[in-house]
């Protein structure tokens, strides 16, 4: 049996599903081939994880949880017949109201802005102070000439 054949049958060897003759051939190959043996050990360990997972136990309070859930199902629920209709009407009404308020607020904001004529803005600009008000003497020249 060559490596390719071994690689095709490893899982069936681990699961003990090979015929006795094939199993012996594979065993002989694993004794001599290090690479195949490493693959075999890895695969065997991985497949053993299933057994470990099967050992996991469910929550010990699972039945209590189920009982509680079932008793909740059996409880008669209070049904408010008016509630769905109320919500159906209230939702669009509230939405429309806030939309209307938003539009009115926008219009009133727009109207409150007063645009200035070009003359007004010229006057306003001439009153502005320049940030650098000491252009005659910079701080560098002042420090240099201090002595």
């Amino acid at each position, binding site marked *: 049996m060559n490596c390719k054949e071994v690689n095709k049958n*490893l*899982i069936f060897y681990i*699961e003990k599903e090979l015929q006795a003759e094939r199993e012996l051939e594979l065993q002989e190959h694993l004794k001599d081939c290090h690479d195949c043996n490493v693959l075999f050990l890895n*695969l065997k360990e991985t497949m053993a994880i299933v*057994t470990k*997972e099967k050992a996991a*136990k469910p929550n010990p309070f699972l039945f209590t949880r189920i009982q509680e*859930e079932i008793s909740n199902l059996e409880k008669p629920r209070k049904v408010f017949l008016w509630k769905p209709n109320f919500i159906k009407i209230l939702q669009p009404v509230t939405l429309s109201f806030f939309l209307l308020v938003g539009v009115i607020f926008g219009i009133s904001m727009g109207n409150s802005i007063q645009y200035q004529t070009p003359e007004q803005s010229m006057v306003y600009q001439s009153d502005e102070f320049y940030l650098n008000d000491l252009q005659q003497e910079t701080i560098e020249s002042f420090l240099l000439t201090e002595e």
Partner: protein
Amino acid sequence: MSDSGLIDKIKRGDQQAFKLLFDKYHLRVFNTCMGFLHNKNDADDITQEVFIEVYKSINKFRADSKLSTWIYRIAVNKSLNFIRDNKRSKWLKSIETILTGAIRNDVEIKHGSGYDPEMILENKEKAEMLHKTIDSLPKNQKIAFTLNKYDDLSYKQISEVMDISLSSVESLIHRAKKNLQEKLLNYYKKN
């Protein structure tokens, strides 16, 4: 008590009979869910849903199939639906893995891998790889393989649960194992 006796009593609202049914089947249902979901908390939740469904639908059960077959079918369908509906983002899953990782590690530690951190990490990587590979199998191969490996169901029982022929089950499990082997060996060769 026989399954038919249990069913009759549960139909009449006997809580004790429902408890007996739970005791009889809950481990098998939990293992089925674990096989599909690979997560203890999710498996607990789905097991709970399965038994609630059993309780709600017991009046519709017409005994065309065995009770165990019916319960397995519910467990498989609920698990597959959970996987389908589970659209949690990757980062949320990674947080969950960190939080629930301890539970999985507990299982690994308890069952023979010792306390070597390197070994635990290696086992965790292998478990993740195995889960990914099982999840990547075609649906029917995954169902047949999971029922066979996680629940130790015979090919005959699997054929009843899946409602297919015995030869189809044999073929599905054979192909599932071949696919698993191919994918896992490729992974080992790369690493």
